[in-house]
C-alpha cells in the first residue's frame, strides 16, 4: 500500500497524484492502480509520470468510475500499486529525439525525457505535447531540460518537423500515434509507440490486452505497452 502525499487538481479533469511509493521503475512502465477495495472490480492501468526512488507520481484524467474515485482520494489515503508492469521505452540510439504526446498520453513522456537527459545529457529532446484545452498539466513539463512545445486543440503533427529528428517516442490516442508513425516512418530511424488497451491482469495472464503486431499477437501489458511503430497494426 502506498500513501498519497498529494493529489493535485490541474484543471481540465486532470490530476497529479504523488505517492510515497519508492520503487524504481522505467519510463513507459505502468502500475495497475487501485484506490478502493472491491468495487470497481478491476484495477486501472496508469503510466508512471515520474519516479525518483522516493515517490511515484501519476498524471491522470478523470474519464469514468475508477479515475473519479482516484481523484477523490486525499493526502494520507492509501492506494494499491500493482507493478511496475510492462517493458517501458528502450534505450534510444538517435540523438535528436521527438517525444510526441496527446492528451493524457503525455504522462509517460515526462520520465522518458528526464531519464534520457540524465543518461545522455548531450541528446537533444523536443517534447511535442497536444492538449484539448490548456491546464496546469502543461506546467509539469516545464522543469525538464528539453524544449517543450504545446499545441492546444488541432493536430499535434502540424507543429512537428520530423526532419529535425532521428527518433520518435509517442503516446496518445491511437489515431494520433498512427499519424505520427506514418509521417515519421521514412524519416526517423526509431519510432516507438505506447499502446493502450483494456487490461484485467496486467501481468500477461489473461490475454485481454492483445495487440496485433507483425510478429503475431503480443500482450500490451507484458510485451508492451511500448512497441516499435513499424510492428503494430494500427486500428
Amino acid at each position: 500500500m502506498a500513501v498519497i502525499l498529494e493529489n493535485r487538481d490541474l484543471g481540465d479533469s486532470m490530476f497529479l497524484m504523488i505517492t510515497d511509493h519508492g520503487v524504481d521503475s522505467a519510463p513507459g512502465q505502468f502500475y495497475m492502480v487501485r484506490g478502493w477495495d472491491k468495487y470497481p472490480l478491476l484495477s486501472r492501468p496508469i503510466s508512471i509520470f515520474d519516479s525518483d526512488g522516493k515517490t511515484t507520481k501519476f498524471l491522470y484524467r478523470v474519464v469514468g468510475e475508477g479515475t473519479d474515485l482516484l481523484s477523490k482520494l486525499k493526502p494520507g489515503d492509501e492506494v494499491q500499486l500493482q507493478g511496475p508492469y510492462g517493458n517501458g521505452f528502450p534505450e534510444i540510439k538517435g540523438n535528436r529525439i521527438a517525444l510526441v504526446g496527446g492528451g493524457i498520453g503525455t504522462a509517460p513522456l515526462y520520465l522518458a525525457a528526464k531519464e534520457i537527459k540524465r543518461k545522455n545529457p548531450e541528446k537533444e529532446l523536443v517534447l511535442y505535447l497536444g492538449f484539448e484545452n490548456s491546464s496546469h498539466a502543461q506546467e509539469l513539463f516545464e522543469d525538464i531540460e528539453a524544449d517543450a512545445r504545446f499545441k492546444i486543440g488541432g493536430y499535434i503533427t502540424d507543429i512537428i518537423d520530423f526532419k529535425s529528428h532521428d527518433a520518435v517516442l509517442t503516446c496518445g490516442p491511437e489515431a494520433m500515434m498512427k499519424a505520427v508513425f506514418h509521417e515519421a516512418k521514412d524519416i526517423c530511424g526509431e519510432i516507438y509507440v505506447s499502446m493502450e488497451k483494456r487490461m484485467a491482469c496486467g501481468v500477461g495472464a489473461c490475454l485481454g490486452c492483445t495487440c496485433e503486431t507483425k510478429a503475431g499477437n503480443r500482450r500490451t501489458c507484458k510485451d508492451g505497452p511500448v512497441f516499435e511503430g513499424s510492428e503494430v497494426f494500427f486500428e
Partner: protein
Amino acid sequence: MNRLITKLAGFNMKNPVIAASGTFGYGHDYEQYYDPSILGGISSKGLTLNPKPGNKGIRLWETPSGLLNSIGLENPGIRAFAREVYKMSEIDTMVIVNLGGDNLEEYIEGASILNDSPIDMIELNISCPNVKAGGMAFGMQCDSAALITREIKKVTKHPLMVKLSPNAPNVADVGVACAESGADALSLVNTFQGMAIDIKTKKAVFENTYAGLSGPAIKPIALRMVHQTVKAVSIPVVGLGGISSWQDALEFIMAGATAVQIGTGNFPNPNLGKEIVRGLQKYCEKNGIINIDEIRGII
C-alpha cells in the same frame, strides 16, 4: 500439518485451490507475487489443436462486480505448447491442460498429442462461449457432452475433468451425462453468456455480440449450480465462479466441491491464490479440522 490435502481423480493435491484456465496463463505470470507451486493445481489457458489468434475488437468489459470477456481462446496450439510443456510441468503442482476445439476430431487429436506430455489432467473445455464453432456447443446438451467425453476417454491416458457451461439448459443433467460417460471429475462453472451495449456508438461492445461473464457477480448462481451438481453425481466436482476470498472458497467446499478454482479473482488481487491457501489452512487450524474433508459437502 497440512490440513488441506485433497484427492482429486487419483491425484493427491497439496490443497484444493486451483488457478482457473485463462486467468493464469501457463502458470508463471504471477511469479512476482508468489511461487505457483504453493497452489493445489493450475489449469492452462485453453489450448486447441491449431493455433488461434483469438477475437478482434474489445476483449474485456467491466460490469458491476463482474467481467465480460471475449478472448476467443487465443493460444499457440497444442503442438507448440507440447514442445514447451516442461515449462509448465516443472511447477510442482497438479498441472492441468484446458483443452478446447472446433470439432470432435480436433478435440480427439489434441487429446492424443497430450498423451506424451507430462501433465496430470485434462480439463475438457466444452463451455467456452466465445468461439463460434465447438466451444460451448458440446456443453449445451447431454448427448453431445456424453459423446465427446466418451471419445476423449477412449484416447487419453490422463484423468479427464469436464468443464461445464452454466448456459446449459440444466447443468447438473449435463454433469450426470459426462459422469456416466467416464469423466473422472467435473468443473463448473465456465462463464455465463452476457452482453454489453455501448450507448455512445449504439453498438454491441463485443464483435461477437455476446461474451462471457465471470467474477463475484456470478458467485451466487455458480454456487447453486455446484451444489445441485454435487448432489446429482458421484464423481468429484470442482467449483468455481466469482471466488475472491478464502471464505468464498469455503462456501463452495461446504456445498460439496472437492476443490475450487480461482479465475477473475486473480486480477484485482494477484495474491489471491496464496491468500486462499493460507486462509483455508488457518480456518482448519482454528476450528480443529484435521482435514478439510470434514466439512466438505456439509450442506
